[in-house]
């Protein structure tokens, strides 16, 4: 690999890996995707590149590994400033807002979404929290302006990537638990946003198909047992 080559260690079902791929596609950065099967075992390269967490995604730029999906997305935005549109908003307050919501998604919201799927007895309260989170995000989207397609405004941005990367998993939960999370009536703006996001050129070829992901989810649940999945 050349001194500027880009490698992504990841796995197709992971929403965190998806964030990195979307960011690189927005910037038109070519990369080699190394599919890791972390459920079975972790490669030497992964363990060497992420000794702290031993998790995907890892972006390796030249010989430098960068870990943690949101850290990687910001890195991609800053390392390739002119090869594509900006990912983070330009105004500090908008950046802070986007980062706030992304942190909320990762620390509070997604663990609850996962809890609905993987059980452990918390499903009902988890569903309430996930629903409430989506209402907040609906409000945040409305605040941006009614006719804008994305949290990033007219173009896809950091918060779109942070939330949108979970879209396929949201669909899986909707199918499996027979609920409507991003609902046309309850969260109409998010509903439209979901369509814009999933059909965006930087997203559509890498967003996992719901049925394929559902099969994977069943496999994971069977293999690991309820409420014993690791976070990614």
């Amino acid at each position, binding site marked *: 690999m050349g001194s500027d080559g880009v490698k992504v260690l990841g796995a197709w079902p992971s929403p965190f890996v998806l964030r990195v791929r979307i960011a690189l596609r927005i910037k038109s950065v070519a990369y080699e995707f190394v599919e890791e099967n972390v459920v079975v075992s972790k490669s030497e390269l992964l363990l060497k590149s992420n000794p702290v967490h031993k998790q995907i995604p890892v972006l390796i730029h030249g010989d*430098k590994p960068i870990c943690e999906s949101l850290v990687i997305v910001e*890195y991609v935005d800053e390392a390739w400033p002119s090869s594509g549109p900006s990912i983070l908003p330009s105004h500090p307050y908008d950046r802070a807002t986007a980062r706030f919501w992304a942190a909320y998604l990762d620390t509070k919201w997604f663990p609850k979404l996962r809890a609905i799927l993987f059980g452990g007895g918390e499903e009902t309260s988890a569903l309430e929290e996930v629903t409430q989170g989506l209402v907040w995000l609906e409000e945040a989207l409305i605040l941006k302006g009614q006719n804008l397609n994305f949290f990033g405004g007219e173009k896809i941005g950091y918060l779109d990537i942070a939330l949108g990367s979970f879209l396929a998993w949201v669909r899986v939960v909707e199918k499996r638990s027979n609920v409507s999370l991003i609902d046309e009536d309850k969260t109409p703006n998010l509903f439209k946003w979901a369509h814009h996001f999933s059909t965006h050129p930087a997203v559509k070829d890498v967003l996992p198909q719901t049925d394929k992901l559902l099969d994977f989810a069943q496999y994971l649940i069977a293999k690991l047992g309820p409420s014993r999945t690791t976070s990614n």
Partner: protein
Amino acid sequence: MAEDLKLFRTWSSPYSLRIVHALKIKGLEYDTVLEDLSNKSESLLKYNPIHKKVPILVHNGKPICESLVILEYIDETWKQSPLLPQDPYEKAMARFWAKFGDEKVLLSIWSAFTSQGKEQEEAIATTANNLKFIEEQLKGKKFFGGETIGYLDLAFGWMANLISIFEEICNLKLVDAELYPLLSTWMDNFSNDPVIKELWPPRDRMVEKFKAMREPYLSKVIV
């Protein structure tokens, strides 16, 4: 010209302290609203309805929440005395380690502080592993930010403040100067830096507070 800046915090919250120090480094003046978390103000709940926590920085009437997000906001809004490195890779590293600090190190140290017996032994072992990574980050540097205190120093600042307090209360050594020479030196340098020193919460009050916080854990049955 004074900025319209308000900081909602408590007298002891390490997350709030990050912001107090950052604002000091930037030379910014602001109003402080001291909160009692057992009786949260209307304003706190209005400005941070999602988490209902401190710190909250309110700039020109607009709230920013989550301490690490606030630090980046401060750094991006006021360019003097930069907190984060300019280089994208160095910046990514600072963000990575700050996250590691909050998500893993803080947890393991808190666990070591509040648990007993076998659970405590495990927490101590996890802490030791975590601290090894941090020790490595200080090679060749006085502060994580280089010659001067930066974002990552502020993010890890709680260690310089709280570890010796936890050690005193538990009669336990968590950061042995022989095992972690760089980290120990950093903790001293950080605590004694003029910017930091004058804003440290009173130690006796902190010891009292954390002793009280530990009580409920002690009454659990030792496994």
